């Protein structure tokens, strides 16, 4: 059904999206927890900064990534001696994809953490649990549905990421030519419409599957789990 070239593109897309998701999930959880439970000076500004990728044009985000993480950029220069090169590589595509989906993840996780009764956390502390144990044994399990929803949303967003990717890591087959970039490339070439359509349909199916799965999960989990009994 799918040609070898198409399978390669899809495999790359999945690799980029999954890796980006896995790498950004711990940060998203940490930041969501901070925003949900802690107060600190500059919190509003911080919250706004986290949401930037959601409201900025993707090309602007891509350009910012180029400036920061390119081999001449401040962060890129630090990473290079460690052997981590992001530009023109699938890791850079993963970074772009992860950043674009990050605010969605943080929002969903933050909402579900806020729904956890903080008194349950206090109760756990009086029973002898330290802060970290409370987080992993009480807060996180009760916020799990939000974590999953957030992750799936971010994943679906990552699969469709284009503007930041092409601006940051260019369009390199096998490395950064994810599904959206491949579709775009086919539309550029006269006679490539049929190919573009095939890949588009597959892209839609993939995103629908991710979203449907997230819906199913949300419905399957006992709604009462999110509140204290």
């Amino acid at each position: 059904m799918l040609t070898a070239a198409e399978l390669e593109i899809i495999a790359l897309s999945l690799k980029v999206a999954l890796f980006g998701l896995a790498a950004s999930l711990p940060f998203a959880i940490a930041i969501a927890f901070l925003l949900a439970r802690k107060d600190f000076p500059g919190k509003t500004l911080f919250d706004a900064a986290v949401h930037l990728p959601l409201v900025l044009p993707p090309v602007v985000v891509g350009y910012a990534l180029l400036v920061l993480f390119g081999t001449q950029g401040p962060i890129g220069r630090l990473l290079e001696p460690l052997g981590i090169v992001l530009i023109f590589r699938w890791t850079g595509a993963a970074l772009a994809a992860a950043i674009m989906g990050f605010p969605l993840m943080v929002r969903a996780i933050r909402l579900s953490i806020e729904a956890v009764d903080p008194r349950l956390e206090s109760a756990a502390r009086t029973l002898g649990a330290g802060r970290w144990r409370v987080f992993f044994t009480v807060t996180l399990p009760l916020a799990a549905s939000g974590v999953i929803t957030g992750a799936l949303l971010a994943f679906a967003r990552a699969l469709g990421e284009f503007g930041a990717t092409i601006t940051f890591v260019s369009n390199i087959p096998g490395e950064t030519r994810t599904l959206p970039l491949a579709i775009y490339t086919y539309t550029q070439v006269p006679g490539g419409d049929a190919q573009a359509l095939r890949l588009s349909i597959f892209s839609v199916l993939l995103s629908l599957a991710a979203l449907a799965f997230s819906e199913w999960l949300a419905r399957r989990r006992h709604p009462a789990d999110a509140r204290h009994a």
Partner: protein
Amino acid sequence: MRRIAALIALIALAPFAWADHVTVFAAASLKEALDAAVHSFESSSGNRVTVSYAGSNALARQVESGAPADIFISADTDWIDYVESRNLAVPGSRKTLLGNDLVLIAPAASRVQVKLAPGVDIAAILGDRRIALANPDAVPAGKYAKTAFTALGAWNAIEGKVAAADNVRAALALVARGETPLGVVYRTDAMAEKNVRVVDAFPAGTHPPIVYPMVVLKRSTTPAATALAAYLAGPEAHATFAKFGFSAP
């Protein structure tokens, strides 16, 4: 008092009262030069001109989809042929405006020396880094580069090392930022960017001549469009273009 002010405003705006609006779709590499030429046209004719710059391929497709452009200037003949073959251009309006050179560039701080001759080993110079080109499958600048490198026998070796940018200006930016050690752009682009230097020009014969054909589009309804087209083909505009490094067609 207010009535006098309104009258004065009306008189002052009179030249623009019957002003037309012309929309031009032009290849990205024409930006600075065309902006200057258009500006002169606006002041002398009183018409307003809006120019949209992008890769010629993207523009051609937009025209095909019915975008409201009056004039289309492409960076190669393929995309003008494309538009003409779909009956979107006013017959006989095609004119070749300009010529350009294809050059190999490097970041300004780089000291690399390359002679573009048959058998040149670009791959060796790149090492494990990449060369920035506009998309070699679709964008004119990229297609020219691919043809030229093929003629020199270097394409196979560097095909896997290409960082394909969306248009020639994006490729230029990558070299200017130092993200790639080499890139291929038009001479006019290299002249516009102070953070790159020209390493060598591709010899004539390695690629078809780079010309910028222009057509007036059928869906254009304003006579100002024809006036602009005539202006751009004329001597005044040519002098402007030459200042930016474009050659005569």
